[in-house]
């Protein structure tokens, strides 16, 4: 289990982290969200020891992570990069060895990952000869080739096509199923909703929302309501129900938890034959906007 407690970090006049903290349990996928400049990359760099926090602490299984512990972490930085002129199999073997695996184990793991990502036939290609999507897959393989206990992935889905996204999501789910704790950042909230059980939202260096998606949805205090009477859209005229445009620009209704649904239903039924009565939980986008005040 990875725990971050009260991390503070300042770069000159810029406050990057202002008491950020959360946990990544083994076998869980934690989506790490926040607007640009909220402190996601700095937090991840702190976990890897690339940045030393000014205050606060990080523990791995109850103790500050040693260099040896950190070699058991897998890291995919936001700024992608590998050696452009090095053959991809060589890079995988190199990074596996650098993470502490022996030569044979490194070679075996490299081959396994190449196979898994369908890159076996490109094993001896230089990285720069691969397509963007394939380079991204090699980057993921490099961060996981040593079989880490924790994976820290900064924007792993950025720049992938839908098939690439599916592949990446499948790999993450398999990893989590094998007990690896995963934390990844993303701006693609629908994706996060799909892949994650846990969500952490950071804003201006502080964690503003954290928990499982279900908890957060319940805790939001509102739901969406869609009602049709006699096949036509029905507008509730009740205090506490707000109108807000949905994605398509049509108006939809927000119903707060303190309004009894039975009352709304009774009112609607009084107007005619009830043909639709749907309640939807808030989306991650809603939670995100609410949390970061946008």
């Amino acid at each position: 289990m990875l725990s971050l407690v009260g991390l503070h970090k300042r770069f000159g006049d810029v406050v990057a982290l202002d008491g950020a903290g959360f946990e990544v349990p083994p076998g869980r996928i934690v989506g790490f969200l926040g607007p640009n400049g909220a402190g996601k990359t700095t937090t991840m760099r702190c976990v890897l020891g690339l940045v030393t926090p000014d205050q606060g602490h990080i523990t791995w299984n109850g103790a500050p992570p040693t260099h040896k512990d950190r070699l058991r972490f897998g890291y995919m930085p936001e700024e992608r990069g590998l050696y452009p002129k090095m053959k991809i199999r060589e890079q995988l073997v190199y990074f596996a060895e650098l993470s502490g695996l022996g030569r044979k184990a490194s070679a075996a793991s490299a081959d396994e990952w190449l196979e898994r990502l369908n890159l076996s036939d490109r094993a001896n290609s230089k990285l720069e000869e691969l397509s963007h999507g394939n380079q991204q897959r090699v980057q993921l393989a490099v961060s996981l080739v040593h079989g880490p206990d924790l994976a820290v992935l900064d924007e792993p889905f950025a720049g992938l096509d839908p098939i690439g996204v599916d592949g990446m999501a499948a790999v993450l789910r398999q990893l989590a199923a094998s007990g690896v704790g995963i934390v990844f950042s993303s701006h693609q909230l629908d994706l996060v909703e799909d892949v994650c059980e846990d969500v952490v939202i950071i804003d201006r260096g502080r964690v503003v929302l954290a928990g499982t998606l279900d908890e957060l949805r319940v805790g939001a205090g509102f739901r969406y309501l869609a009602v049709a009477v006699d096949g036509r859209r029905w507008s509730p005229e009740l205090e506490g129900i707000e109108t807000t445009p949905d994605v398509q620009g049509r108006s939809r209704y927000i119903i707060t938890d303190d309004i009894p649904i039975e009352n709304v239903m009774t009112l609607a039924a009084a107007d005619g034959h009830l043909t639709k009565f749907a309640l939807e939980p808030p989306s991650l986008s809603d939670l995100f906007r609410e949390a970061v005040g946008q």
Partner: protein
Amino acid sequence: MSSLRQVFLIARRDFSQRARSTTFLVTLLFTIGVVVAGGVLLASEVGSPDPYDIGVVGAEPDGLDASLQAAVGAFEREAVVRRYDSRAAGEDALGSGAADVLLVDGQEVVWQEEPSPQLAAVVASAVGESDRRRVMAELGLNEQDVSRLLSPPSLDSTTLAEPDSDAEAKQVGAYVGNLVLFFSIIMFGQFVLMGVMEEKSSRVVEVVLSRAQPRQLLAGKVIGIGALALVQLTVLGTVALVTLNVTDVADVDVAALGLQVVVTVFLWFLLGYAFFSAAFAALGATISRQEDLQGVAMIPAFLLAPGYIISFIALEEPDAVVARIASLIPPTSPLVMPTRSIAGDVPLGEVALSVGLMMLATYGLIWLGGRIYKGSILRIGAKVRLREAWRAARG
């Protein structure tokens, strides 16, 4: 996982990737070519000159061959006598360069262009001797008398100052050694600089640094590229020694001098490279864009240039005050001390002092360079100012 293993793995990667790069292989092959050509050229300059080709046509004095060989021997040269059927054939030989001079009927000497005074004296002396032998035989002198008349008593020779027959060769050796050192330090220093910058600009550095400390990465890179440099120097040194031995230069014991040059260059390269690569690495860490490269790449060259220039003073006058001082203190010592010690004789104490100061300075620079490297390596984008890098690396 020991920290040494990380350094080793990083060094091995830098070594093997760069050793396989086209740039390195082409440079190596080119320099091998230069060394072989240089050795052959040197051998032909310093080595025994070609024998004189002396053409003879028509009547000739008795015993001309023996007289010619004796006369040419006085100049420590050899002669090949070629006979032609006609004057025209002899002149053709002069024209084609097959003969250096043509002796016609033992009476006339024909040249293609400029007469050679030495060769003219050789031919005149040989013809004269043959003539004297003939006259003396006519006078009825016996063989013993002829020899007495023709062999004057030899003179004793004394030289007042002991000449250093190797002085010129030593100068050439020192010059070559200096040149090799200068270019090796610059070339492999640039490799370090580019390697560090490329890791930053390709952003791979963040992946590497999540697995190794900045100092391990720095040390691995410097050691890996340094090992490659030593391989190159060993190959070039071996090629140079083999070339010198095969071409067999006369007089001077070039092989022994060559070995001294190779060993000196090797040792001073280690010291010079360690010192300058720390500077190159620190500077490389402050930049991540190709366009910033020019600006910083010049700095180590400026540091090396004074040593290179003063080496020429040391070449002419190994004990000049400027050369002595510059050979003791960094950053000039890695170029000036080897030049001095090959070209002349340097007291062991001075060499020890120079090496000691160099090691001390290198230790300081590695510490300083390591800190700047650590403070700037993760800052991608604009050039990092040295002061910012210094502050960022606290702790």
